[in-house]
């Protein structure tokens, strides 16, 4: 490092504060709900090469620390003082924007005619046009349905707003004025950053400013390496599944081979499924990308909370993502719901880390985010009132030494919930229950966090309850090191009443007045053998109602009499301790993989990549559909019943693969 360590510490503080002041400015002056309530925005200072060297500690989205402005800047060519570049294009920006409501701005900061840094910010804007209000739906199959595409271009030229661009924007966006307010807030934040950077250069000098960028990155890299060295050398393979690709019932497989050598980590996503038709594709550009490395960032941030936030944190990581897969799709594959896939990428990387060293990282969380929406007619105005009742998550996974957190999950977004009183004031439904779901946390020496249970009673005729892109109905959040899986999600109509019915993945349910729709989210995975859980901890869980008396006995081997542990009986129950697998995936995945094993699926993926991008998804779903004909009914029949003659199904799969062009 070039700078003295005292000055570097001070500059680290001051540069981060610049990004935080930018974030404060943006949040204070923006108007839309995404910014105000969900804090779906971010700010950063960017090196001349396009990478982030300073980032806020706790404002806005934490996960975008390793984005790359390089391709966006390169696409523009010459930049002049007062210019601001805008883009939302997932492909043209090289993955800077990963779906189109995310508007990205980049502003060059000059000193004596030379670019010394850039300011960056983004917001999730309320709407960018396209096929539905708010522009996101899993059923879209092409970028063209997802709204206005803005390749990198100048929003501001030498201080003058590009009026033509804004006219085009206004004509393509449902809530243009609201969004323009947010764009003004973003511009104000970039101006604050510019002023503060100029002040820092005036004070410390240009050379020190440049040296600080390099030194802070080197410093983060060194700290990150120290953490990653805790992962033993070797190669660790892990895969996880999304239940389906929305348009069909065929699961999406994410596979990672993590190779670790002296703290350097290589993530190879070869073998992940080919790109899908629905909007689940993750446009990473095939390079190291925040959506691929998020869990490594969490590992580093947890084991060394003092690591400075800049791209150095990722500089000991390399990746390979084959083009044409769901993690590196080809234009114009739809990408709107890429965050659902990102959750499963996280789970796969967690699995690889847990394979290397169980206990280094928590078991997977409930693995789903369910924005539950109510759409009801306003009988006076004739319009429809649409509102998010609650964003439901599962619990977090257990880890060595700690239970998971019940009913919360900060894994992807760390959002506030909606008070029931606000929901009930703004629409006609009654939330009869919003609580923790008993017996849903993955059992273990350390218990996974419970999922949630929410019951909506409908009171207005013509009301629909929506929950799109629900996950973890089939493939459960798995247990680690002897721990069991969390309970899968369910949606039940009129639970506990005559006529109770399983609604499967909700999507959209047109309710009758008096209907009660109950959504149960998945629990987090357990860690360690449930028979090793302290009996007093089990007794406490029973007392609090997290675990039933029956499961205390069956799953944990703990006998309770009047709430107190019966030591002798517990000892007897625990005498024969069955061997537990290192990962417990639940019966569905075990059955599925008796047919669709790793070798076959890797071969299938490789061969599908030989087909034209536009036909891959169809070819894959056709093949799987022929091996498992009843798959469309999986909600009713259950996955285990559909793969009930694995030997024969394997053979047919092998034949199907052989019929594809040779990789």
């Amino acid at each position, binding site marked *: 490092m070039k700078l003295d360590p005292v000055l570097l510490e001070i500059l680290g503080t001051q540069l981060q504060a610049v990004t935080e002041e930018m974030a404060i400015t943006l949040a204070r002056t923006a108007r839309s709900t995404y910014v105000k309530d969900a804090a779906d925005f971010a700010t950063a200072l960017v090196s001349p090469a396009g990478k982030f060297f300073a980032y806020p500690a706790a404002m806005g989205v934490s996960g975008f620390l390793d984005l790359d402005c390089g391709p966006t800047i390169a696409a523009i060519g010459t930049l002049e003082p007062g210019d601001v570049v805008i883009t939302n294009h997932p492909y043209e920006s090289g993955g800077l924007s990963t779906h189109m409501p995310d508007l990205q701005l980049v502003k060059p900061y000059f000193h004596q005619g030379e670019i010394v840094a850039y300011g960056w910010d983004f917001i999730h804007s309320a709407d960018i046009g396209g096929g539905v209000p708010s522009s996101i739906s899993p059923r879209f199959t092409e970028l063209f349905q997802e709204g206005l595409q803005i390749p990198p271009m100048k929003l501001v030229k030498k201080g003058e707003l590009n009026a033509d661009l804004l006219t085009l924007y206004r004509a393509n966006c449902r809530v243009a004025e609201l969004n323009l307010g947010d764009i003004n807030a973003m511009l104000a934040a970039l101006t604050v950053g510019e002023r503060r950077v100029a002040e820092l250069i005036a004070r410390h000098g240009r050379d020190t400013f440049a040296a600080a960028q390099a030194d802070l990155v080197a410093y983060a890299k060194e700290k990150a390496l120290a953490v990653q060295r805790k992962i033993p050398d070797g190669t660790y393979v892990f895969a996880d599944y999304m239940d389906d690709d929305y348009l069909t019932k065929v699961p999406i497989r994410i596979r990672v081979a993590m190779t670790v050598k002296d703290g350097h980590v290589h993530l190879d996503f070869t073998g992940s499924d080919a790109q899908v038709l629905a909007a689940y594709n993750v446009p990473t550009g095939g390079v190291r990308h925040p959506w691929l490395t998020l869990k490594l960032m969490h590992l580093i941030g*947890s084991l060394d909370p003092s690591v400075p936030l800049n791209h150095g944190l990722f500089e000991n990581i390399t990746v390979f993502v084959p083009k044409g897969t769901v993690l590196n799709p080809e234009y114009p594959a739809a990408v709107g719901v890429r965050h659902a896939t990102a959750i499963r990428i996280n789970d796969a990387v967690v699995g690889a880390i847990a394979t290397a060293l169980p206990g280094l990282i928590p078991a997977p969380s409930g693995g789903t985010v369910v924005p539950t929406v109510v759409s009801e007619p306003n009988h006076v105005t004739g319009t429809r009132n649409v509102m998010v009742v609650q964003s439901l998550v599962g619990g977090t996974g257990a880890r060595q030494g700690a239970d998971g957190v019940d009913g919360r999950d900060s894994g992807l977004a760390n959002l506030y919930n909606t008070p029931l*009183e606000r929901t009930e004031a703004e629409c006609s439904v*009654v939330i009869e229950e919003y609580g923790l779901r008993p017996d849903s946390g993955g059992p273990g020496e350390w218990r996974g966090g419970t999922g949630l249970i929410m019951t909506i009673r409908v009171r207005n005729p013509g009301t629909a309850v929506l929950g799109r892109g629900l996950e973890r109905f089939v493939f459960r959040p798995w247990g680690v090191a002897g721990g069991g899986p969390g309970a899968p999600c369910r949606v039940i109509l009129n639970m506990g009443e005559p006529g109770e019915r399983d609604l499967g993945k909700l999507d959209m349910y047109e309710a009758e007045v008096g209907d009660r729709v109950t959504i149960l989210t998945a629990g987090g995975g357990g860690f360690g053998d449930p028979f090793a859980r302290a009996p007093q901890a089990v007794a406490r869980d029973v007392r*609090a109602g997290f675990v039933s008396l029956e499961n205390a006995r069956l799953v944990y081997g703990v006998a309770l009499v009047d709430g107190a542990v019966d030591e002798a009986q517990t000892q007897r129950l625990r005498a024969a301790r069955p061997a537990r697998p290192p990962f417990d995936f639940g019966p569905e995945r075990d059955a599925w993989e008796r047919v669709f094993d790793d070798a076959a699926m890797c071969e299938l993926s490789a061969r599908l990549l030989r087909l034209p991008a536009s036909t891959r998804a169809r070819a894959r779903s056709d093949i799987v559909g022929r091996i498992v004909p009843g798959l469309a009914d999986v909600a009713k029949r259950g996955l285990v019943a559909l793969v009930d003659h694995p030997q024969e199904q394997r053979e047919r799969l092998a034949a199907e693969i052989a019929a594809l062009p040779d990789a």
Partner: protein
Amino acid sequence: MRRYRLGIDVGGTFTDFVLASTDGGEFAFHKEPSVPADPSRAVEAGTRTLIEQLAIAPGDIELVVHGTTLALNAIIRQRGAKVALVVSRGNRDVMEIARSRMPNSYDFTAPRETPLIPRESVYEVSARGLSDGSVLTPMDAGEVAAVAERIAADGHDAVAVMLLNSYRDGTLEREVAATLAAGLGDMPVVASADIWPEMREYERALVTALNAYVHPLMAAYFDRLSERLAKLGLTAPLYITANNGGTVSLETARARPVDTILSGPASGVLAATRVAGHSDLITFDMGGTSTDISVSRGGELAFTHATMIGDYPLMLPVVSVSAIGSGGGSVVWCDPQGLLKVGPDSAGADPGPVAYGRGGTRPTMTDCYLTLGILDPASFNDGKMRLDAEAAAAALGTVAGEMALDGPVAAAEAAMRVATAKMATELRKLMAEKGLDPRGFVLVAYGGAGPTHAGFLAEEARLDAVLVPRLPGTFCALGAILADVRRDYVRPARQMIDRAGKGFERIRALLTDAEAEARAWVAREGAIIGAHELRLTCDMRYPAQAFELAIAVPDADVATLDPATLVDLFNDEHERLYGFREAASDVEITNLRLAVVGKVSPIALAGADRTAPPEPKGARRVYLAGAWHEVPVYARAALGEGAAITGPALVEQPDSTVTVLPGWAGRVDPRGNLILRRSHP
């Protein structure tokens, strides 16, 4: 005959006292070591000392105003009562889920908050209201009586009741609370609608539960306190400082202890606005374990409705104060990569800095002041505690060795730079949140270390003036006797209005109700109150807007309040902040916030006598701005009105040491404040 007022502030380490005559003629202060096991003992001892010092009769004291961190500490250390929470069926996990957020997005080892009330102590009843104030399910008296039995059997000390939608109409909830109380004898039962009827069930349950949580503890303490003061012969009424910068009677504090939890910092800010006169202030309160800043403009306190008490959000209006560091006890250390860090660990009051010689081994900011010569080992804390300069230097020398710095002085100076840069960036962010430019603001320094560090912070943050009050070490106790009586009320409205008066009848009805409650309260609050005034703030927004603006209504007369004025005020403020207005749109009033302020006749603040040009009492070598200086040391007591000094210099006073940096000059104003101003560009 002179009348006196006594201000008392109970802190973790010291209990501070200020005794002042109302005519400004006499003024005394005292610091008594706190007695954590029974804080009222220190109160009694200190009060006796001051009465003896001024040789007055206890009956000459006309008012005692008291503040304490007792309740706050009980919450932070989870030592409150065993509270049962009663909720509507289906809402049992309101404490478990809270607002669903985790404390840290990067760190999966960071635990969530411990629920204030464990799941086993939450009881469900069928009684349930709707958002329009109607009853969905009425109370089942038998069921509630059975719950009361279980609550008693499970050994609870207090009960909080929070039924869904009770913010809209508290009748059903009060009915349940009354039925529970009937079955629970002396056990305190409190309904959320009576504590703070604002929408958001978690926050409302929490504020109600917090009240119940500290109720038994505070009631017992107030009893002991009253008893001890009476034993001393004091006949004056006792008031308690509140979160909102005001005070309340003992009676009110006993019923609503939650209103007093954060009164300490509020009193300090209130004192700053009173002693500095009407100007734009940034308060800088640096003690042994915390550093707090706040902003106030034009002598008005700034409030927030989103404070954290430890891990718990508090929805009550509280004087807005932000923590920006861990004070003089902040630990100075070197990380494995060789970077110098200050905090977040703190040596606290115990063991405290290395120099205290109480077993601390990690150097702190206080050790830095000592090593740089800013503090004098012999005169610290009025000479009552000798500091160990060699031990402090040795500990800093160890840190210097780890990072190849040239000895303890270099390490101390580096730590000062790092800590000051951090504070300045926090200050700048706070100003940015409020959309304010710090230039023109005066930094008011108090707390033991505030005056010591304020000059450095002002220099780094490019502030032009620092104000050090006469008694920075007992500033909160002073604030207590300068405050008015004050209580806040909220009425959720969620009412669309327009300029022509649509929807305004309901607003007027809600206000009339709130006003009646406020006036009735203030009328019962005691004879010390003269006139009273009402202050109205409306939370307003355009339909479906994601956030509200708080619009202060200048003349809060309900009878003449005019909807057009209100809508215009909102439109103007929206345009000022966001550059446009939607003049044709309806406007929604989400909450009405009413404060009643009972004026307490002000006391005259004693000025400083004029004295001859100041003579230093000595000199010592101090390392400042990168070099050793031989600087004059003045005694604060010798600096009368108009006294002027030039930096570099030090001013020692019993409760603090003031640093005057090179390029700064100090002058004592007529109120006795020492004002430091930048004399270099």
